[in-house]
């Protein structure tokens, strides 16, 4: 198998969520001397982006997203230490969590995978994360971005509660705040005073990079 064939197959097997094949092709690719970045950026990430696009179009539903996400996560396990070895600094650090009172986390987990694939360091606080827990994590990890995920009408108000808590702790300006989840809209994100919103995982990465470079440019100025 040549390089193009391998990348093509890696893309195809990720798309259908065949985790054992994805893992074996990842190892094969590395054995052929392909860099971890190439496997990520020329097969795995584009494939997961296509999964997201098919979900948006209604061609895929949640299980297809989940199995593809799982397959990609398996490859990341192998690639993560290699990426660390290359000495490349993560392009940013993000703390993520599903807000207090909510245990929906499929969307958040996919966002995490895409962030990690894009070269971010991701600290996942899991589900039902209280404002205090977010604050402690920000103190401990000093992230560039903090992401709140919510899926229920009754838990969306936790965005505002989290932001208020950050304000009270004098930490609001330290971090970029991004919000998302099925019921969330740009309008709602604006109302609660978040810095960014995205409707899916690939858009979240694009938006995060934008916000990050804006902030870094500002810091340099």
């Amino acid at each position, binding site marked *: 198998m040549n390089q193009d064939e391998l990348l093509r197959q890696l893309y195809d097997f990720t798309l259908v969520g065949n985790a054992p094949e994805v893992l074996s092709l990842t190892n094969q690719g590395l054995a052929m001397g392909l860099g971890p970045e190439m496997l990520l950026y020329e097969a795995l990430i584009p494939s997961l982006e296509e999964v997201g696009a098919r979900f948006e179009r*209604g061609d895929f539903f*949640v*299980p297809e997203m989940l199995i593809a996400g799982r397959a990609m996560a398996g490859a990341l396990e192998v690639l993560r230490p290699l990426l660390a070895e290359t000495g490349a600094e993560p392009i940013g650090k993000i703390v993520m969590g599903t807000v207090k009172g909510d245990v929906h986390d499929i969307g958040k987990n996919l966002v995490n995978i895409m962030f990690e694939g894009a070269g971010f360091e991701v600290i996942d606080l899991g*589900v039902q994360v209280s404002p205090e827990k977010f604050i402690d994590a920000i103190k401990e990890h000093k992230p560039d971005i903090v992401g709140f995920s919510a899926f229920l009408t009754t838990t969306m108000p936790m965005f505002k509660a989290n932001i208020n808590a950050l304000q009270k702790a004098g930490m609001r300006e330290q971090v970029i705040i991004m919000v998302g989840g099925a019921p969330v809209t740009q309008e709602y994100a604006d109302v609660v005073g978040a810095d960014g919103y995205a409707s899916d995982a690939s858009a979240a990465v694009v938006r995060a990079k934008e916000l990050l470079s804006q902030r870094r440019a500002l810091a340099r100025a």
Partner: protein
Amino acid sequence: MIACGALGGHIREIAARRGWAIELHCLPSLLHNHPERIAPAAEQLARDLQGRGLRVALGYADCGSYGALDSLCERLGIRRLPGLHCYDVLAGPGRLRAMFEAEPGTYLLTDFLVRSFRRSVLAELGLEEYPELWPDYFGHYRRLVWLAQSRDAPLDAEAAAIAAMFGLPLTVIDTGTGGLERELELLVGPMPPPLEHLTGSSPPPTAPDGLVTRRHP
């Protein structure tokens, strides 16, 4: 009445018992997994029915449409059931809030969900094809609460089987359908005039209980 398939059976029973002259149109309950499709489907049907001169009401709560059903109601001058979802209507929003505050990892069942669990949950979420996804979906749940409308032995057994599948404790709350009936009463208002007076033509064929039920694919 345009209703969610999950409530259709109850609405039909209540309307028959109360002698309401309503035409019941059920949309598939599975639309809940694609809530952005609920309002467009309801709108098309509502416009058709209004075109026939009928007064229309929605047997839906917000149901994850995140306001889309409310704006539909506003546009067409119609009303819906109150609350965020049918659980609010069946058990009361206060009771539900308390339940989720006490244990956010609560998964709710209704008679409909107990009966259709395999089809509407296991099959829809791909758990029959990929049982390994179970922890991705349900790993964070701590208990099941069954809001029961009318229990019987087979349903009890089904619910127990579902709880065993989760390996979680099951709490049963007998809500009945009183809450739904009160809300429907408000929705249909004072007894509407018989169909022929509204449409000026002969009513569609009725079932023996005087009710017309249509299912929409």
